[in-house]
């Protein structure tokens, strides 16, 4: 608790991002699959995801629909709100021209913004070609964050982006999977998005990858301490929050694996 206080206080609230707004022109849908628990390979985590592609940037996020709120009045006069969230909350904004990656993540009630450099990936282009939903694609392979990926990119969409942190090919990556078939971004169609600007959340707490991981860990292990922290941080900013997260899934096989050399 004492250790965390200065950490939180050091976080600076940011206003609107400095990015010029970029309109989404086209969107790629993916079926995301992740074997989180290797003892239950038959029950991988799956989620519908979407990559909105603009002319200079893109965002990859959940496509499971918005959170649902259920408000009920308690007999004692207080109001109780039940929120059901679908899918994950993390959003990856890729700005290939600036080689910048902005990750917007969420721990209940607070959005965090983490800015990083886009990972530089050493791709090997293959001669294989395939068509995904009418998009002409070519194959490439690379070792990214501990896994060997095979991806298919579309040179007709000449923005060097892709789902998650995958980027750097001369076209949007429309399908990707790792050699062990534990992480898959399976192509699930192309759609025209509604009028959407690709903009990281205007309000959010700027932080770093490491600090965010610490906060997340705290929220999971000691939710009470975390909610007190946040309440302190959002002084007079809202209702009292009582967070009761579930037991959480077992993740013994993260997407990013440590490199053994």
């Amino acid at each position, binding site marked *: 608790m004492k250790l965390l206080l200065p950490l939180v206080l050091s976080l600076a609230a940011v206003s609107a991002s400095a990015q010029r707004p970029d309109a989404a022109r086209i969107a790629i849908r993916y079926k995301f699959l992740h074997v989180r628990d290797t003892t239950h390979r038959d029950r991988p985590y799956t989620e519908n995801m979407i990559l909105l592609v603009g002319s200079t940037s893109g965002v990859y996020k959940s496509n499971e629909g918005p959170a649902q709120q259920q408000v009920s009045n308690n007999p004692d006069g207080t109001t109780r709100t039940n929120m059901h969230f679908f899918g994950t909350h993390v959003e990856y904004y890729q700005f290939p021209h600036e080689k910048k990656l902005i990750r917007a993540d969420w721990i209940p009630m607070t959005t965090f913004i983490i800015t990083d450099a886009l990972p530089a990936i050493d791709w090997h282009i293959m001669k294989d*070609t395939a*068509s995904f*939903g*009418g998009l*002409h694609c070519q194959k490439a392979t690379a070792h990214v964050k501990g896994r060997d990926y095979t991806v298919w990119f579309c040179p007709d969409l*000449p923005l060097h982006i892709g789902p998650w942190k995958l980027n750097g090919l*001369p076209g949007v990556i429309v399908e990707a999977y790792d050699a062990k078939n534990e992480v898959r971004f399976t192509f699930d*169609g192309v759609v025209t998005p509604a009028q959407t600007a690709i903009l990281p959340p205007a309000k959010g707490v700027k932080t770093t990858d490491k600090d965010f991981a610490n906060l997340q860990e705290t929220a999971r292990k000691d939710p009470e301490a975390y909610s007190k922290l946040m309440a302190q941080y959002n002084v007079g900013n809202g209702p009292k929050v009582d967070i009761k997260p579930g037991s959480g899934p077992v993740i013994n096989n993260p997407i990013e694996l440590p490199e053994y050399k």
Partner: protein
Amino acid sequence: MILIAVAISVCASSFGQAIKGTIKDSTGLGIPNASINLRSQGVIVAYTATDTGGAYTLHPPSGLTPNDLALEVRCIGYQEQTIPVRALPATIDCTLAMSASELAPLVIRDNRPVLHSHGDTLDYKVTDFRSVQDRVIGDVIKRLPGISVTSDGTIYYNGRAISGVYIGGDNLLDDNYSIATTSVPADKVDKVQVIDNIQPIKVLQNKVNTNDVALNLVMNKTARLHVMGQESIGAGLPGNYDADLKAMAFKNDYKAINYLEGNNTGYDLRQELVSHNASAGQQRLGADIPTPLLSLGAANDPALSRQRYLFDRSGMLNANDLVDLRHDWQLRLNAWNLRDRERQDYSQVTSTYLPGDTVRYAGTQHNQLNSGWLRAQFTATLNSSTCYLNNVTLVNDNRWTDYSHVNTNGSPMDQALRDNALGFSNEFNWMRTVESDHIIQAYSYVSRMTEPETRSIGPSYNDSLFNHGAPYAQLIQTVDVPTWYTNDYVSFKVPGDVMTRSFRAGFSEQSQMLTSNLNAAFDSAANNLSWEKKKAYAEAAFDIVGQKLRATLTLPFTYQQLHYADPGYALDKKLTRCYFNPELIGKYKAGPENFVTFRYGYRNQTGSIEDVYQGYLLKDYRTLSANSPDLTLRQNQEAATGYYYRKAMRLFFWSLSLAYNRIGANNIASDIITDSYQRLVMLPFRNHTDSWTVDGTISKYSFALQTTFSGEVRWQDNRSIQFQNGALLPFNTTVSVLNLGMETKWSDPLRFSYRVTGTRTASTTRIDQWLQQSTIFYNPKPDLQFKLSGEYYYTHSGANPDLNYFFADASLRYHCTKRNIDWELDATNILDVRTYKAVTLVANTFTASSYALPGRIILLKIVFTL
């Protein structure tokens, strides 16, 4: 508006093979972050992006040939440009014009099929094309864009017949691939691969060409782990049954398709046993397989799908097993035993138009055909990169006992035909690489075949001709042609960088004896003809295996000695000849996905023992046949060319081919046709037959309409001459076929297919036939499926009344998930059509036939998946 200034200059750069330059907009400002892609044969091989000033430097990988390189410049908001790269290194500057749309317009739709091409292989993902009603993989293959399947199950890929269907890369079935397409469950196959230029012999890979194209079924994980079983039992009205029990395995080291099935619903089990490349196989062996000489003279089969007219009761046990042993060895067994009883009720009027005369036969037939077919083939194969060994042992026993009651031009008679074909063969083929990459080969083929045939006709059939006008009991014709054949050679192949040279030397020997007897009261009704054909040959062959050009030139020289004798006719002839039968086959790759093929062949063909017997043979009750003592020698010239185009990513295929065939012969068949019989004699008269074939196919999947459209146009023209009743008559037959089809998915529960085939046969008269077939598939729930189909046959021929036939079928299937059982209710020929009339035209012979059909069948079936 569009300002394009492309400056290509080649300079000796200190950068090695780099391409560099600057990309600017029309105002002269550098465009940052533009994609620079270097394409070779259409695929990206290197890429980079421009810096803030619009400059770029690209380092191409080594080993590229500059003449098929192109630099592609793309940037959102600008029009893309492609610039050919003529030399390396290069400096390429480029100005891009602004574009109104920020991303290239894309037709957008979800869940569209994916086609994956790599090198000579094309992958179709089964889930993209499969409908829930497709039970077996053959149902899916039929609807793949670029692939067509004929009514006998032969599969064509972009206009070319495939050589086989591999399962998980293994050859389980040779060319009897209908066994796989009618039994492998569609939901167990992950991908259907088309492999072009397949060379299954590892020793010869990249050294000796093949122009074969084959399919490979890539099974999914569950299929590769478990042995599968399926059982179905059906019973219906009127008195019909249908049952089968299947056990299949598609493991990496063990593949099997074993089943037991039987029915009397008209489903012909023989259609699963079709050898789709029989003629190519025969040519490889160099053997003339003797064909049956006698028949019942039954009417031709009607031009309906077989299930519509077949009255039969058949059962079959079929076992196909392949085991992968260690060290590249495989053992395989293919065996079947088929029992079949078929019934036919036909009536027929045949008219032969002769100058100034028309000869007519009218008759009815009630036939019963009983057959038992046992065939077992054992194959042992070693296939490694240094050694190849293949030994195939085959035993074949095919027996027929047929009865026929015939009434021809008012006189009744009974026929019985017994035909017991028995054959044994062994084919041994061994190759290995020896020092400095040369390949040696030894090959041996031995076969023994007999086919005794006996046919009796009675009573008092045509006594004026066969018994001086006196009544008699039976006319019996017997014939048998026991045959020994062997073909053996050794060869030596020298692979080179550009060309593989092969040299081959060997010999073949065919020894036959034709004995026949007809108990008729006239001379020349028996044969005792011996036949000995010996060949020694030497051959040089050249295979060019280039990136663009693949060609094979074969130059064989043959020395042939022939001796045939029949003491009964004082016949004793010897013939010694030298032959040169060159052949050139080639394929030129005009682009990454299109190619041109060409073929020329000249072959000398010597007639067979069936062309020189001099005693009369009553081939069927109307045909008496005999030959002149001189052997028929034929010169067969074939020339063919074709263009095959594919755009896999757009699922677009088309092909156009042209073939010419000319056969010259020194003998001609002369028919003497009378009201009661036809006498066939060979006469020495130089003649030739010419035929032209033009064939075009097209297939395209429309992403917007979720529909596969396909079409074919074929035109065939045959010209020959024939002697009939002493007059020399020209025979010209032209057949034109138009075929259009579509397979569409309206929505998830609703699918529709439609096909129309028009055939025009023109000779002395003209027959037009149209066949329309359509099917609606409706799946209101995942476990409930409904199918309704209709077939409409229309025939128009001259002044004859038009023939119209409509057949309707329906089926309903319910899947009970709890017990994993399917219930199926099938109704065939709902409108209960009982007779079918047809007209056919071959040269100047016009036949009008009438066939009895089985009528409506309703069948309830239960399918268990084990």
